């Protein structure tokens, strides 16, 4: 598979899997306003994913459209980061996962608005406006929960600590990243780490939360297709209908 396709799948799968996780908690949010906000984020991510996957399929040129890529790949062919496949947990966990992702996602999309490939630029330009709102919202929640009650502070700190080992993967560039960057369709992620650190440290400080120490052995492999045990269950639900009734229109 070409590095271009591979790098687009990474973008598309992050959106698809995180929107799936958010879809699992529809109707179960603690505040009605958050139902709207959370569904909104899920919709944005799903919409972006459709664009990235469609472009991946188009460039691949083997007749796979966004649906074929979403519904007919098995777990080892998915390219999302491990962070976004983590199960929902409590609201603090959802907020931490979202904030870590959004902060990274926004930086990546801003970078993608400046690559040479205009198709990638166009999607990134649209998406980065949406994600600018996502990161404001999730960052606000980190602060509210961190600087809320003792219980919320504790939960928020636990969530930050538990998800911390999944952050480094977002900034590790492999051969695909390097090649996609050289091909004018991708960005290098390592250089974005400093800006991410600044935003996250400032936000955690405002939230009276402690920044965890660097992970000694960060978790990685998602974007190369080495996932955790949870993703298989996501796909079982996500793909059930297409696999049970293949080749039909809906």
């Amino acid at each position: 598979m070409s590095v271009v396709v591979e790098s687009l799948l990474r973008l598309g799968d992050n959106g698809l899997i995180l929107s799936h996780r958010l879809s699992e908690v529809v109707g179960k949010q603690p505040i009605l306003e958050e139902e709207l906000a959370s569904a909104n984020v899920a919709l944005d991510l799903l919409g972006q994913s459709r664009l990235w996957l469609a472009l991946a399929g188009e460039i691949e040129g083997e007749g796979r459209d966004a649906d074929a890529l979403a519904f007919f790949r098995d777990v080892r062919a998915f390219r999302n980061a491990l962070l976004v496949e983590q199960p929902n947990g409590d609201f603090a966990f959802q907020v931490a996962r979202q904030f870590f992702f959004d902060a990274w996602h926004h930086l990546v999309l801003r970078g993608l608005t400046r690559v040479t490939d205009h198709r990638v630029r166009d999607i990134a330009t649209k998406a980065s406006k949406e994600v600018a709102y996502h990161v404001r919202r999730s960052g606000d929640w980190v602060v509210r929960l961190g600087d809320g009650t003792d219980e919320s502070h504790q939960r928020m700190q636990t969530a930050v600590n538990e998800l911390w080992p999944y952050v480094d993967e977002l900034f590790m560039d492999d051969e695909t990243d390097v090649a996609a960057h050289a091909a004018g369709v991708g960005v290098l992620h390592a250089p974005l780490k400093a800006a991410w650190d600044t935003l996250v440290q400032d936000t955690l400080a405002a939230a009276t939360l402690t920044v965890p120490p660097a992970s000694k052995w960060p978790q990685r492999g998602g974007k190369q297709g080495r996932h955790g045990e949870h993703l298989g269950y996501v796909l079982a639900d996500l793909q059930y209908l297409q696999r049970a009734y293949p080749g039909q229109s809906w």
Partner: protein
Amino acid sequence: SPEARRFQERVDADIRIEPREWMPEAYRKTLIRQISQHAHSEIVGMLPEGNWITRAPNLERKAILLAKVQDEAGHGLYLYSAAETLGVSREELTRQLVTGEAKYSSIFNYPTLTWADIGVIGWLVDGAAIMNQIPLQRCSYGPYARAMIRVCKEESFHQRQGYASLMVLAKGSAEQKEMLQDALNRWWWPSLMMFGPPDAESVHSAQSARWKIKLFSNDELRQRFVDQTVPQAEYLGITLPDPDLRWNEERGHYDYGKIDWAEFQAVVAGNGPCNRQRMQSVNSAFYDGAWVREAAAAHATKTAERETQ
């Protein structure tokens, strides 16, 4: 009283009643019950449809369904706001839902078993809801009437989307047609029950009609719904599960079979297939999320204190 007389005159003259105006206590209470029940239905209604977002058959349908369920949360919000103008707090309304004191539409106590259920809910359940709500755009209470205008617009959009998704099934494989017919068989009668008990057994109706917060009777609306739905079903090429359904030339309406009101009463009383499950979902969202609401309140207080320093 002169106030009461003046109130009724304004209602009779189709002048909207606004929040700060004088209104009979019974009018206020009836409206609170009616609006909040509608709001609760939007909230609980997210569950049976939300059940299929993760399993929608393609990405476009997934996005449409997610957006639809999001709209329902939005409708819940407008309607709670409309109820709040009558002097009841959202907290109190939520408490009534969580404790089971307040009702929500019984239709949401049926399970969504296949993808076709999602389309059929859009077509029939939203269709029945719109039939109920369109007259309420002209109801006497201003905030409610205005909320209904917005809700009806969105619901009509949902209904068209639901019907469109059924057209795809109707033109699809034998399995898809069977799935569609099966969903219709399960949802048809509960949809007819959405209009409430027969007029003969319906309470409060006369007063509500005088107040213009109920503009047509249950049976009138049900008949309109049947009349509207039959040709749509024919166009889809599916059979409504009612052997007694036929055009009555004399009445100029479709006759339809006897509704199983015992089932309706059982479901209203809490014994439908999903009543417990829905209430458990509502309760766990509420109680498991209490710490989040407390945290948000605590943070808001801290922020306000810092600003005044």
